[in-house]
């Protein structure tokens, strides 16, 4: 690793509307180093990468020093010409094109190389796959691949060109330990060739295993850059959140209430296999595992969005078969989506409409029309009981911060008064202070008798906020922990095994 800078960013700021995504970023990536960017979701790293890759233009006063030249902004062409490759969190793949074409897509920009030849694309793709150490079906269209396979395609694409700086935004979210090891080897290989690798992951152990230096970003600002050897997880967590938290686990489940939800031998080919679970009144059960382990697929089946192939679901002791999510809701199951922006909330519509969306039939007057007074009262009650900061319920949800929007998403389901509430990744994109309050909401609901299933891939989150943690791996429940009598470390090892 040299001390020679590959790219330097100075005074980079960017805001969208009233939200300041980047606030005076100053950092340098050196040639041949592995640099980790540590920061929670929403800290601004996506915007930062888009500035580096030329998609976004930073505000006046910013300076980007690259290849000995100074730029006030980059465009995609320049960025790529300087050897910058970004693997975005959304992967940026073309679902309608084949794997080969996706990996080799940069070749389509080489105008002077004549006609497009399939053989050439295949060669490029194969070489990239060799570098990464994976084999993928070249002729399959990307939309037919699994999430893990898509992630590998994105990584291969970055390797296909002669990159000098590779930025990987959460590249290991759905990879198994073996695949992660392969990736770590790839990173080491790149480093030995003098390529700079910028790595973003919130799995702090991985981060420290391979990085040379770590830059912490919080709320769009650079907090500082530190050599990795001087860092530890706790210190890093503190820097990323700005707060120290004293956590204590929830403890054992005491109540011994009736079983609200019972799942027996639930199976759906290709998604989950032989799932057995019981959740009682007032119990919080957490399901954790890698992306692609089947967690969300299981939730969707419980919520009636999909139908399992075999096995049984019992709600309140009665066996049920949901043909749609409407039936699931009618039987008392609620589901707070993992992606509030696309499936959890209708962002452009009013807070009022969003909050009442699940209970519209219950807000009708006897003549069939909506009872606006009743609806407004309900929303007001929920807003205050969940301490949501709302200026005006008739404003669109986009006017709310991430944490408040997420609470509206939860409020919608609380309105439906479910017996079982599934929270899927409930604090993604939510800042720390709001995270705590959302955990408290879950605990309060449980205390009132709701059975809660919390799905998350943040181990501390599930460890401190549930009675039981179930680890899901490749569609099966592989481990069962009681936080009161085990450690975070144990769970982490089980997940990454």
């Amino acid at each position, binding site marked *: 690793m040299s001390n020679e800078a590959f790219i330097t960013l100075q005074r980079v700021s960017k805001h969208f509307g009233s939200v300041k995504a980047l606030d005076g970023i100053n950092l340098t990536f050196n040639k041949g180093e592995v640099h980790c960017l540590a920061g929670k979701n929403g800290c601004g790293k996506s915007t930062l990468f888009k500035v580096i890759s030329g998609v976004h233009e930073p505000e006046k006063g910013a300076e980007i020093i690259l290849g000995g030249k100074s730029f006030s902004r980059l465009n995609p062409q320049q960025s790529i010409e300087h050897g910058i490759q970004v693997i975005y969190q959304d992967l940026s793949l073309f679902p309608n094109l084949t794997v080969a074409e996706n990996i080799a897509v940069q070749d389509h920009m080489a105008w002077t190389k004549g006609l497009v030849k399939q053989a050439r694309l295949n060669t490029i793709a194969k070489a990239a796959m060799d570098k990464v150490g994976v084999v993928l079906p070249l002729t399959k269209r990307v939309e037919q691949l699994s999430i893990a396979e898509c992630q590998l395609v994105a990584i291969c694409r970055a390797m296909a060109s002669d990159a000098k700086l590779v930025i990987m935004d959460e590249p290991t979210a759905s990879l198994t330990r073996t695949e992660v090891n392969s990736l770590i080897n790839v990173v080491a290989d790149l480093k030995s060739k003098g390529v700079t690798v910028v790595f973003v992951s919130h799995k702090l152990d991985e981060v420290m295993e391979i990085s040379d230096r770590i830059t912490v970003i919080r709320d769009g600002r650079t907090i500082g850059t530190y050599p990795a050897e001087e860092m530890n997880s706790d210190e890093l967590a503190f820097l990323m959140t700005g707060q120290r938290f004293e956590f204590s686990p929830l403890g054992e489940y005491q109540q011994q209430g009736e079983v609200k939800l019972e799942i027996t031998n639930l199976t759906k080919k290709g998604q989950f296999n032989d799932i057995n679970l019981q959740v009682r009144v007032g119990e919080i059960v957490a399901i954790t595992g890698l992306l692609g382990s089947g967690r969300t697929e299981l939730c969707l089946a419980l919520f009636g969005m999909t139908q399992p192939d075999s096995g049984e679901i019992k709600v309140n002791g009665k066996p049920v078969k949901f043909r*749609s999510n*409407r039936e699931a809701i009618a039987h008392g199951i609620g589901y707070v989506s993992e992606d509030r922006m696309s*499936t959890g909330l209708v*962002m452009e*519509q009013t807070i009022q409409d969003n909050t009442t969306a699940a209970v*519209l039939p219950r807000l009708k007057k006897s003549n069939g*029309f*909506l009872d606006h007074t009743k609806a407004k009262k309900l929303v007001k009650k929920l807003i205050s009981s969940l301490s949501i900061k709302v200026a005006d319920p008739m404003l669109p949800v986009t006017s709310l911060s991430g944490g408040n929007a997420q609470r509206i998403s939860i409020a919608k389901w609380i309105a439906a008064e479910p017996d079982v509430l599934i929270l899927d990744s409930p604090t993604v994109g939510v800042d720390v202070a709001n995270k705590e309050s959302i955990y408290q909401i879950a605990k309060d609901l449980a205390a009132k008798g709701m059975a809660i299933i919390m799905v998350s891939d943040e181990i501390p989150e599930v460890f401190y906020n549930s009675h039981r943690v179930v680890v899901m791996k490749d569609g099966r429940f592989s481990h069962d922990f009681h936080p009161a009598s085990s450690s975070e470390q144990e769970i982490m090892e089980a997940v990454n095994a």
Partner: protein
Amino acid sequence: MDQVLNAMKLPTDRNIRYLLVILVGIFTIMAIASGDTFFSLANLQSMSSQMPLLGMLALAMAVCMLTGGINLSIIATTNACSLVMASILTISPDNGMVLLLALVAGLVTAIVIGLLNGALIAYVGVSPILATLGMMTLINGLNVLISGGSVISGFPESLLVLGNGSFFGVPMPLFLFIFFAIGLWGLLEHTSLGRTIYLMGSNEKATRFSGINTQKAVLYVYVISSILCWVAALIMMAKFNSAKAGYGESYLLIAILASVLGGINPDGGFGRIIGIGLALIVLQTLESGLNLLGVSSYLTMALWGGILILFIALQKRKA
């Protein structure tokens, strides 16, 4: 009144200001150019009897656009209803029972078409442009088939009164339009279907996740659209005293124009009935004015296209 004002304090508020400005502009120009004729009772009456037909079609288009869809088959549907009703009516024009039968038959035709459109979009999964395009072709063909391409005319006085009569001084067609416009407004603001339409228009998936039956809602929307076409058919029959396949084809663009001009966001989720009403007045006065000034109808056609583009550009500029 409060609710009316409230309805205006929304994203389309800017829109309404623009429209009012344009309206004032038109009135001023017309006052200078041919004040006597334009503001004459005859002209005002003529305008207020032409506008409702376009108005019903605009409503039929708008309700589909609110869900992020579009209904290219509104003209075909209108003609289908009018041909069905006309065929039955002319069997025995002065029979009250036959009149009732004809009305019911027309309504049933509309509902069937609406169900087919809705089913194609919601259950088969065809995109609204394609589904309504296909249906439009099919219905147009059936229209020509039923009527043999010729005009059916000779309607009883009881039907013609819908076109010529007045209700407390308000021309009947205008009355019908206002009635249904208010009805649609009531549906959108005060029923769960209305809330569903707005939610779906912005994000169908999230709406479905909330447990709302979006497929059934789509069905309802396209049936409502067709029923509005049925009313349009009644107005058309009464005005022209005839029915023919192929009437009013130029109205398709104008219906879309009125909707977008009125603030309906073509991507879905936004738009208020009041805006459409205002847009219709603007379009109608513009057309009348141009007509009076002797401007060729083809130039008017070009103007519609130009105005829509201009309006969209203005909207985006301020945003």
